[in-house]
Every structure is written in C-alpha cells, then in structure tokens.
C-alpha cells in the first residue's frame, strides 16, 4: 500500500514537471509555419515536398507509402519465415489473428471458392492491409526533412490525392477485369455503367483520410489543445477510420466485382404469337 502511494506520487510529480516544462519552454525558434499554410499544404502538398532519392521532389505521402510497403513486406517476410512454418492445426494467438485477417478479407471479397486463392481475394487482402496500416502510419509521426528545410511528420499515404486516385482507379480496373474475365461483354457494360466509381472511390478515400489529417494537424498546431485531446483525436480516430476506410473500400470492391462478374441470366423464351384468324 505504501509503495502504491509512492508510485502514484512519482507519477504525479512527473506529470506536473512535464506540464510546466511544456508551457514554459514555448515554440521552437526559427521560421514558424502558419496554420493556414499548414492546412493548405496538407491538402495540396505544394510547400513541403520531399526528395525521392535525389531524383525528383515528391509529396511526402509517396515516401510514407514506400515506407509502409517496406515495413509490411519485411514483416510479411519474417512471418513467412518464422511463423507460418510453425502453424498448427489448432491455432495459437498470432496464427488465429493472421487466419482471421485473411479469412475476413476473403469474406469481404465474396470469394466464390473459399478454399482457393483468387485474384480478387488477394487484391482485397493487399488493399485492406495497405489502407489499414497506411492510415495507422500517421500515428507514429515519422519525421522527414522537406526540400525547403522544414522538418515534417510523414502523413498517411492515402491522405495524398495521388495515392487515393491510384487506389480508386486500380480498384475500378480490378472490377472491370473481373467483369471481362467472368462475364465478357456483359461485365464490361455493367462496369462502364458505374463510370463514377473510380472518382467516388478515390475521393471517398482522399476525403476521409484528409479530414482526419486536417483535424489532427489543427489539434497539434495549438499547444492549448495538446493535452488529453490527442489521445482521442490522434489515437482513437486514427484507429477507427483506419478500420472504417479499409472496410469500406474492400467491401465496395468485393461487392462491385461480384456484381459485374455475374453472368447474365438467359432471357426466357418469348411465347410465340398465335396469329388470330
């Protein structure tokens, strides 16, 4: 009981010291970025750009996307080498998580033959994992230096309109491909009817991710909002919309893919008209 009180006291002292320090230290010296510019840059990425291996200045989201991909591929490689060979018929905790993720995304893709690997299943799995972990990436606030010398926190890949357009258009092409492969011209017609799909998919992702980014940016911009609130805004919202966006896109792709790849039912034969005498 005594140790308990001691621990509590130490914790309170640490909190008080950090609070005082954070108020007294003040903002860093040097050029201060205006919130309007920060907001505009979060949307357009025209101020803070990052050099891609010295070849080209790109939006920070492309660097984020590459980092997310690299992390995911390394993690997948480690899982493939260290975990999957030890899979058991009665799964352990981690195996259960992996199987649940694969199974859930497979169900979202409405895979026709659940036992087999399918293209749409693999695409939905990759897209779901990319969107989820890509959105969570902004939570870590990985730092980079912009070409103008400003330090910036790398944002979620899909908060960049280019990444969102890529995802939306690619999903549309996958749906179109499914329609061509499974239903031929009928599938093409059914897909082309949904011509607004790539735009809606792209901007849904972009809007959702960008709104999260802007709110987070706004909160972090003012020191008065930096207490307690980031726990809700930074962590809870990010987790929630990572999950929601991954769910929405995978579900839409699976649903449209299934819809356009259904073969048309043969029209019932028309009854012959009997000529009246």
């Amino acid at each position, binding site marked *: 009981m005594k140790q308990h009180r001691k621990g509590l006291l130490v914790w309170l002292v640490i909190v008080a010291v950090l609070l005082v320090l954070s108020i007294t230290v003040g903002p860093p010296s040097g050029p201060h970025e205006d919130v309007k510019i920060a907001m505009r840059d979060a949307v357009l*990425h025209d101020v803070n750009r990052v050099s891609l291996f010295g070849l080209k200045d790109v939006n920070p989201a*492309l660097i984020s*996307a590459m980092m997310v991909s690299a992390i995911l591929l390394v993690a997948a490689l480690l899982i493939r080498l260290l975990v999957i060979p030890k899979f058991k018929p009665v799964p352990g905790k981690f195996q259960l998580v992996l199987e649940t993720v*694969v199974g859930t995304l497979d169900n979202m893709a409405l895979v026709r033959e659940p036992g087999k690997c399918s293209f749409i299943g693999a695409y939905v799995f990759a*897209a779901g994992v990319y969107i989820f972990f890509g959105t969570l990436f902004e939570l870590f606030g990985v730092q980079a230096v912009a070409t103008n010398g400003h330090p910036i926190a790398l944002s979620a890949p899909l908060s*960049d309109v*280019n990444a969102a357009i*890529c995802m939306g258009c*690619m999903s549309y092409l996958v749906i179109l491909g499914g329609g061509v492969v499974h239903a031929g011209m009928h599938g093409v017609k059914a897909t082309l009817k949904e011509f607004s799909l790539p735009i809606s998919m792209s901007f849904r992702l972009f809007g959702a991710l960008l709104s999260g980014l802007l709110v987070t940016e706004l909160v972090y911009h003012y020191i008065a909002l930096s207490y307690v609130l980031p726990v809700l805004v930074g962590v809870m919202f990010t987790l929630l919309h990572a999950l929601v966006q991954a769910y929405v896109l995978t579900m839409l792709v699976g649903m449209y893919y299934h819809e356009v790849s259904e073969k048309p039912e043969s029209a019932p034969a028309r009854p012959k008209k009997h000529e009246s005498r």
Partner: protein
Amino acid sequence: MPLNIDWQQILLHLLNFVILAGGLYFLLYKPVKDFMAQREQQYKEIDESARKDREEAEKLRKAAQERLDAVEDEIVQMRSKASDEIEAEKQRQFAEARAEARRILETAGKTAELRSKKALADSNEELRALAMQAVQKLIINDGNALDRFLDAAERETPHE
C-alpha cells in the same frame, strides 16, 4: 493540374502498391490460405474417413446380425432335428425292448412249460416206480396180501 494531381506520382503509387500486393500475396496471403485449405481438406478427409468407417461398421454390424439370425435359425433347426432323432431313437429302443421282453417272456413260458411237463413226467415215473417197489415189497413180505387187501376193503365198505 488541380489539387496537385501528378500522373507520375500516381504511377509511382501504383508501382508501390503492385509490389506490395505481389509480396503480400506470395509471403502471407497464399501460404495462410494454403494452410487453411490444407487443414480444411485434412478435416474433410478425417470426416470422410470417419463416415466411411461408420458405414463399414454399420455394414459389419448388419452382416453379423444376419449371421447371428442365421445361426439362431440353424440352432433351432438343429435342435428340432436332434429332438426328432432322439425321439425316433427312443421309440426304436422302446420297440426293441418291448420285442426283447416279449421274446424273453415267450422263451420263459416255453421253458417253464417244458420243465413243468418234464417234472410231471418225472414225478409220475417216480410214483410209478415207488408203487411198483411197494407192490413188490408187499408181495415179497406177505404172499396173501391180496386176500387181506380185499378183506380190508370189504370191511371198510358197509354192506347194504
């Protein structure tokens, strides 16, 4: 371009995603799916095997039941047949015993009759011999025996 849309960056994002999708497919999705499918197949095989074993056991049980029923029928038939045979044997033995008894009785009757006749003949013979001996003795001891006999006979017989 409006909104800073850059086709080169879109293509770079596409390249990045294609690499990621391919890597995830070969490293994670396919092995996990293969394992799940293999396990499902294994459970299906176990289920199928159990179903076959159950059917086989049911067939064996039916065959055993049929054999048991057949054996029971056979036992009933054999018991009935044995019972019939025992009855027939019993009847045969009774008949034989009866015939034997009759034969023994007949033989005994004949033997007894012969012995009786022989005994009667023997006793007659013996009586005759005794009578002869007595007569001879009388004749030898008393020559007037006949007269005395006659006298005795007269005395005993009352005259009317």
